[in-house]
């Protein structure tokens, strides 16, 4: 299947059905079927599972996932179709004629139980010592089917070593049920290609190229595989024990910065449906746990806009006025560490397109251990910076050798939403019940522009709000500052904004159509980069790329499960929270203004800014030694 030059990775037999429709009535028509002796009319060609979902008939699944192509390997979703000798996997069987389906007949129940027993007989590990206790799909099914003894035995010794080589992702293949979700995520959804099934039959193992530790292959740490794994086979590298130690140590000054996406999603870990932002409640919880200061990452998101926006304007000036060939356009955002590593591995020759600005997390680390330490008169050696992020790649990012511009490790730990929720629960706190409280000074309240970083298109929207106003002196011509071309979940979006009647110092931009593109998920990043390689992006100026589908709100550290609907709700929560804030443009954030006047006196992209807030990249290439 091709669409232009893009070849779909979905296996041929799972692509939309092209069964010959025998009569014109069939085209888009309805088929009458019977499920559990009740009659229904369903669209021609949908799978049995989809039909059952339409009518709220429960069919258990394991390898099926809304974001991914069909696998049909676990066989848990088997149902009985009258007239066929074997049971059919409802996730992959298309309905093309009138059939009678039984979703829980005796055959089906017995078979499902057997398959579950088989999976459990190979699954090593006890639930009570697993990070997915109470949120595991295998555990749920075992409960649903009343498993109370090991019919086919149980694994007594682990047969694989746990791969702890990566800063971000820990792989424990003893718990793997070979559902292939991570393979489909990494190869089809993200197009990075780190995990695949090797060997055959009973020896099949989901692993990396030549079974190397994951830190030695081209893993970008996006953690999408973790979000989709039904069991505890994949998890993040959890630093909460060390953080507890720091909190409990009276000598250490532990500060935490919280990002918008975790705040929009952490409610899901406490039983709330997706779409409830608990920002202020979270501040209270963090102080109760013992963090000395709670800061808002949106502050440095605003700072990023100032730095990156200025860098963009500098590039535009160099390209348009000075005709400097060495300056590359379009400029790509660099706040997504998964995307940055992807670029370093797969497109190392285009690293000069990446903005040199650090991500908000890393900027904050540098600012805290210099400016904040000075202002508060604390020895930076005693400061422990923790970053609450929706992201598993941030754990890798804070350990990058170049991230020590403050003279110390800028950010000590990246903590994910799930891990923090665990810490809060350990402290006996029920998050949704807490009263609200504010962020701490001297970084206080940030602008709404920083908040929308969490959704795909948010960085672009925030940048445009400021850049447009800096250049023209006017607010962006969009109702209520909602730049709608930036919003939405389409994989690759593009739009433009005309710069007219600009201020005198930006004369060279008069009449320029500022073209921008937004992409999320590395598969879409690949589409954009391939266009760049072919030279098709000559008149595009700014591109925002997020490594994860949905943007940061779909990051590798966010609550499990994930689905297009959940990500949509989180985006809505972020936009709703933002619309209610008093300040919604980065350059109007008074704390940012204060920082530039008192500390970064040369302004954005000045000497000190470059030292603390900008970084370099490493050409890694995709050759695995």
């Amino acid at each position: 299947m091709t669409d232009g030059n893009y070849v779909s990775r979905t296996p041929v037999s799972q692509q939309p059905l092209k069964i010959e429709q025998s009569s014109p009535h069939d085209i888009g028509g309805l088929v009458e079927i019977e499920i559990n002796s009740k009659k229904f009319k369903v669209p021609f060609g949908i799978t049995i599972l989809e039909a059952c979902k339409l009518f709220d008939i429960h069919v258990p699944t394991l390898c099926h996932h809304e974001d991914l192509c069909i696998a049909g390997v676990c066989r848990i979703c088997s149902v009985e179709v009258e007239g066929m000798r074997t049971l059919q996997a409802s996730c992959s069987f298309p309905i093309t004629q009138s059939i009678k389906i039984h979703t829980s007949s005796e055959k089906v129940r017995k078979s499902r139980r057997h398959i579950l027993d088989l999976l459990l007989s190979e699954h090593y590990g006890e639930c009570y010592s697993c990070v997915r206790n109470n949120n595991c799909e295998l555990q749920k099914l075992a409960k649903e089917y009343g498993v109370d003894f090991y019919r086919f035995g149980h694994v007594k010794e682990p047969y694989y070593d746990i791969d702890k080589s990566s800063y971000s992702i820990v792989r424990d293949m003893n718990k793997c049920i070979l559902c292939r979700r991570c393979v489909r995520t990494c190869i089809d959804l993200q197009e990075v290609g780190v995990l695949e099934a090797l060997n055959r039959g009973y020896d099949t193992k989901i692993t990396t190229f030549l079974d190397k530790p994951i830190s030695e292959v081209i893993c970008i740490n996006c953690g999408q595989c973790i979000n989709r794994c039904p069991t505890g086979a994949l998890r993040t590298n959890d630093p909460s024990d060390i953080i507890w130690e720091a909190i409990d140590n009276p000598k250490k000054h532990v500060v935490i910065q919280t990002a918008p996406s975790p705040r929009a999603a952490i409610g899901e870990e406490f039983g709330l449906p997706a779409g409830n932002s608990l920002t202020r409640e979270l501040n209270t919880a963090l102080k109760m746990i013992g963090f000395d200061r709670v800061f808002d990452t949106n502050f440095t998101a605003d700072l990023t806009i100032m730095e990156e926006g200025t860098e963009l304007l500098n590039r535009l000036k160099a390209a348009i006025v000075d005709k400097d060939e060495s300056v590359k356009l379009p400029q790509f955002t660099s706040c997504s560490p998964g995307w940055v590593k992807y670029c370093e591995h797969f497109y190392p020759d285009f690293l000069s397109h990446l903005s040199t600005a650090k991500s908000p997390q890393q900027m904050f680390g540098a600012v805290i251990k210099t400016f904040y330490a000075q202002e508060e008169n604390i020895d930076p050696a005693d400061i422990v910076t923790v970053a609450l992020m929706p992201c598993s790649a941030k754990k890798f990012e804070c350990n990058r050798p170049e991230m020590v511009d403050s003279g110390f490790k800028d950010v000590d730990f990246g903590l994910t939403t799930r891990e923090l929720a665990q810490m809060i629960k350990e402290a006996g706190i029920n998050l949704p019940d807490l009263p609200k409280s504010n962020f701490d000074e001297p970084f206080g309240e940030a602008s709404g522009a920083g908040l929308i970083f969490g959704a795909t298109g948010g960085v672009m929207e925030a940048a445009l709000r400021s850049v447009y106003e800096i250049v023209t002196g006017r607010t962006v011509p969009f109702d209520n500052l909602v730049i709608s071309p930036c919003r939405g979940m389409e994989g690759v979006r593009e739009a433009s904004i005309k710069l007219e009647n600009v201020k005198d110092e930006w004369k060279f931009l008069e009449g320029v159509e500022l073209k921008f593109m937004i992409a999320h998920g590395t598969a879409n990043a690949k589409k954009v980069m391939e266009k760049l390689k072919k030279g098709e992006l000559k008149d595009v100026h700014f591109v925002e790329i997020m490594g994860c589908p949905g943007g940061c709100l779909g990051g590798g550290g966010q609550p499990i499960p994930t689905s297009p609907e959940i990500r949509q709700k989180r985006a809505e929560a972020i936009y709703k929270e933002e619309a209610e804030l008093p300040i919604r443009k980065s350059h109007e954030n008074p704390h940012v203004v204060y920082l530039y006047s008192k500390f970064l006196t040369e302004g954005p992209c000045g000497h000190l800014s470059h030292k603390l807030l900008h970084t370099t990249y490493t050409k890694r290439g995709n050759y695995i030694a």
Partner: protein
Amino acid sequence: MPILNKPIVFAKENFGDGFEKGLKMKPIDIVLAVRESGLKGRGGAGFPTGTKWMLAATAIAEKKFVVCNADEGEPGTFKDRVLLTEFTEQVLQGIILCGYAIRAQVGYIYLRGEYEYMVSQINNAIQKLKNENKLGKNILGKGFDFEIELRLGSGAYVCGEESALIESLEGNRGEPRNRPPYPVNTGFMGYPTVVNNVETLATIPAILNLGSDWYRNIGTDKSRGSKLISVSGDVEFPGVYEIPFGTKIKDMLELVGAKDTKAIQIGGASGTCISAKELNRNLSFEDLPTGGSIIVFNNSRNMLKILKNFMEFFVEESCGQCTPCRIGNKKLLDGVNMIEKGECSVAYLKELLSLGETMRITSKCGLGQSSPNPFISILTTFGDEILATY
């Protein structure tokens, strides 16, 4: 080695000019003739060939493919080896006729890697047909273009399954696909593909030469035609035989010189094991279907060790995709080992037999659906003897 008894269909004179006759017919008439003849797939599954060809012929697509499944891997089967070496031209003719009937442009022969020594012989036969204008452009002046490409397997029994074969041709792991949609609708690269066994395709020129009525009259009502059987094990004359469907087992045993028989494995490792008490049963799709192999065991053989050999085979050859086959086969093998050590209770054995039933109906492909067969049939038929010994 040629066929050891008097051939019924596979006599060189039967093929005559079936190929030329076929190309003079209209494509749809060939499909109808094949359907009339009652020919069913000779690879083991036994799907009516005419129906398969009809579905592919009526599919509308810019490309179509014919694949000759020469990945003969079933233990005890070597009839295709004989066909490919002794009846090479007939096999190729069958492929070309199929291509003509369904309007395909390319045919593949998927030859198992273990038969690599036949490659030059097959390539020579292909070249010879090309020289005679029976392959390539404008075959015999009928305006019909067809190419045949030889592809090798690399040591995977599961690639004999038609959708796994197509996956292998496409450069993937040989893991069967979800069906439906079937290969005749969505096959190689998404195009309609007919996958047929070597024997099925080799029969076509004979049917077109002597007519479908002639073929119908051989065999039984539900199993028309003849079958090539590879016989091995404790027999005096192992080799390939051709018998009409409906032949009784005891006649077969007499033909091959079997003495002192205890058990017969019909249909290879994934078939059924019958004891010497059931010799009146016959070889046909109604009674004892066979992909073409009979292995005879005499009274000195240990049935449990034979079962172990079969289950080890399946554990190794399973592709590992679906849960029931990947783990189920291992559990059945572990069960056999437990019986051998005297550690398997009757209760657990019952659980395993029930597991076998589940595997038969939930596995994704034929391998998992038929791998419990030897387990269930040997332990049911010879259960008392085995449990008494261990």
